[in-house]
């Protein structure tokens, strides 16, 4: 049943493709006006909220002052970028952002896919649903609460240290160790977002033709074989698309986690780009400087996405661009 519908979809796609070449663009638009009309609000939304704000980038090249008209602003050229690239704190923040971003990406990638595979293997439907529901609940818990939980758990008087002492170890003051900070941030993010992130993979897995599993079973494949040869290849396009998108977000990691989990003791490993923009930009009323940080971050994001997309295409995947 499912395979049949898939086949017809492929056929439909092919015929449509051949139609495109014949018909003029206006004819197509006329034919698909309803679809276009449905897409319009979202196009407008993207334009309004994602593209129009780019105009604000002009701030980075001015000495912007609030409540002053655009033409009365004083232009500064690349001065803010010059100061930015000469500031050691900035490079430190950049390093921390990349570090935690990459760790989060890698850990999140394996944790979500692994978790989705595990859930997918559960045959008892009701249990599966309960586990899945519970697993994505942390997604709705605010970072303030998560940070408090983590701090309490890892405190010298917390349960983890009780266990360590119970096993004869020495108290570890996790929250003040420089070497552990990135790990703690990454682990708490994994805890919070794994269940939620797994949903999309589970959806992709549900779309895999059961006939393939049945055929594999007939051929004597065990569960590992089925996961390796059927499930994973089945969700490969999803994995690639999500990976490309999350690579773009490696430098977009925000600062709540770092701010809430960090303290004066771990500042040099916790200070990330957004936090830097807050400290040395907005809080000093240097709005232009803060914008320059934002532009730098966006440029890095776009570059990363383009690179990963290129690699994906080269290796035979479809990519997103």
């Amino acid at each position, binding site marked *: 049943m499912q395979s049949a519908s898939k086949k017809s979809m492929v056929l439909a796609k092919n015929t449509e493709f051949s139609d495109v070449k014949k018909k003029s663009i206006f004819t197509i638009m006329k034919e698909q006006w309803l679809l276009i009309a449905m897409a319009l609000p979202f196009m407008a939304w993207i334009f309004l909220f994602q593209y129009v704000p780019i105009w604000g980038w002009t701030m980075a090249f001015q000495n912007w*002052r*609030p*409540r002053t008209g655009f033409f009365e602003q004083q232009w500064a050229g690349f001065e803010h970028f010059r100061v930015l690239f000469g500031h*050691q*704190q900035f490079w430190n923040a950049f390093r921390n952002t990349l570090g935690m971003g990459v760790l989060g990406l890698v850990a999140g990638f394996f944790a979500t896919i692994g978790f989705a595979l595990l859930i997918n293997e559960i045959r008892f439907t009701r249990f599966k649903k309960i586990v899945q529901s519970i697993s994505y609940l942390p997604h709705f818990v605010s970072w*303030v609460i998560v940070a*408090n939980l983590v*701090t309490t758990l890892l*405190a*010298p*008087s917390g349960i983890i240290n009780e266990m360590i002492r119970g096993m004869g170890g020495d*108290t570890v*003051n996790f*929250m*003040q160790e420089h070497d552990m900070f990135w790990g703690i941030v990454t682990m708490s993010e994994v805890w919070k977002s794994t269940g939620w992130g797994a949903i999309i993979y589970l959806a992709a897995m549900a779309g895999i033709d059961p006939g393939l599993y049945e055929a594999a079973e007939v051929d004597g494949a065990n569960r590992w074989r089925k996961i390796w040869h059927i499930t994973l290849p089945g969700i490969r396009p999803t994995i690639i698309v999500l990976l490309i998108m999350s690579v773009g977000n490696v430098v977009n990691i925000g600062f709540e986690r770092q701010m809430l989990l960090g*303290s*004066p*003791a*771990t*500042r*040099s490993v916790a*200070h990330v780009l957004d936090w830097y923009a807050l*400290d*040395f930009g*907005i*809080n*000093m*009323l*240097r*709005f232009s*400087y803060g914008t320059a940080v934002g532009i730098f971050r966006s440029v890095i994001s776009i570059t990363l996405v383009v690179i990963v997309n290129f690699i994906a295409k080269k290796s035979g995947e479809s990519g997103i661009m």
Partner: protein
Amino acid sequence: MKTTKKRMFTALCGLGMAASILAACGNETSEPAGTGNGDTGGAADATPAPELTGSRIVPEGETLTLRFYNADGAMNPATGQSVVMEEITRRTGIELEVITPMAGHDETTDVPLFISQGNVPDLIFANTATGMLIEHNAIIDLEPFIMSEAGADIRALYGPMLGRLRHSSEDPRIFHAGTTFVDYERLTTSGTAQVQMSVMRYAGFPEISTLDELEELIANYMESHPEINGQPTIGLTLIGSNWRWGITVGNPSKFTSGVTDDGGWAVDETGAATLNWLRPEAREHMRWLNRMNDRGLLDEEWLTQTEDQYFEKIATGRALAVMDQNWSIGSSQAALRDAGLRDGGESHWRMMMPVPVMLEADMVPQVTRPTGWRSMTGVAVSATSEHQEEALRFLNWMASEEAQILMNWGIEGVHYFYDENGVRTFYPEMAEIRDTDNETWQRVFGIGNYVHPFPQLGNTTLDSTGNPITPNTRENHMRTLTDAQRETLAAYGVETFIDLFPSFPPGSEIPHGEAWTIDHGQGTEFDILMSTINPFAEEQVSQMIMVSPDEFDALWDNFVATLLDMGAERAGELKTEYVRDRLNLWSQN
């Protein structure tokens, strides 16, 4: 459909035009109507001001809501309605819509938003962010109003100190009505080492003067009392997980070597400023903390605990000593005071008392040294407010004797009365509430709740009836002491705890006041330098407290060298300029 829309549009246009014409007319006709409001610039009243009577700021029967931002609102809940606030509205016609920082925010995050939105509240107490408002011309110069007839009460309140409200010698305008007490006798010390009275009692009330002696007291007590109320005893607790780092770790390292409260700086009589971390005394203080940590006398969670955990340790009496300000541990102390009423006074012994301990016995504590009056921060008036006139007059009214008595004592016949000798006294049942039920007193009555951050008279001021303007006098302070405190004080042969500290003769005021109250501007060279140096220093010093004692010296040498690389000396030069500018400004007034 179309016609309706068109009609509506026309109607709206018409309304808009009418309004603008009316406004224009209003401006032309609103010549000063003999109310003596002075020139305040651009408050647009559409109608000529009718005669105002008594304390009214708007005509009888009307109320005007002014937006008031209170940066300290979260700490000192001057929010919501209360008996006193209703009385203020009844007398003046002004209602305050109080805006306070949301959780996790403070004035340094709120004020930039106000500025960028062009939406600065009518009255604004921006505390440390006042400089931002000045820089962006978001608040007005108060001097023309203060010097006018209508500003008489503000002039009277500040008296000869008026000149110290000036911003700087370069920009001598007055931007805020300083909230520091005028005429004030210090009743308590704050910010230095404080230790549980039970620790002192256990040791037989010794007179101690050094950190080493304090250390031994704590060690002895911990040894004989490993648990308090079933939980492990904690020696000294500090809190280094947020901005309180500076209050509990940074500042005490200056106080214990006889340096006045100048923020992260040690400032001498000539105004020359040195970064605290470059002083050998700061190093010795941190070496002491390092040893405390090594001996297990320092709370092992001091660096990472949350505020809740910290306050809980003090409120349950588990922590034997702190180094903190009274306003910080006040709620924990109040909890112990309440608990003591229920357990026969045992918890009262767990309350903290200040001890004058220094690095060396011959160093002199400066905490009791008079700072001289300095305006610090206060309420300012928005430059974009539509009600500047009313805001200014309200500010003036808050400085009047009538308002000061109302805010400090409540309402005559309800909260207080004058006895046969003319002494202002709280009714006994009110005095009872005042001593035992802070919630009702502050939130329901609102007494004492609106004094800060408005202009305020101090506890040595007498009003026109010869009564103290605030009930918080030395007599009152001594009246509220617990039995435990009385017993301790008697053992030391003094009246109050402040008597344990040296008293300074008149004229020994610190010439520059307190250097931390100087505004350095945002995004200035100094600001950027310090935003880099401070977090670095906090992190490094924290780590050095936790290392093993034999690593301490090498790390500290390295730390000082890095600070110098980062421009600590340049920052010192800039700070010196700021301090000397203030000395210069104050010598002119």
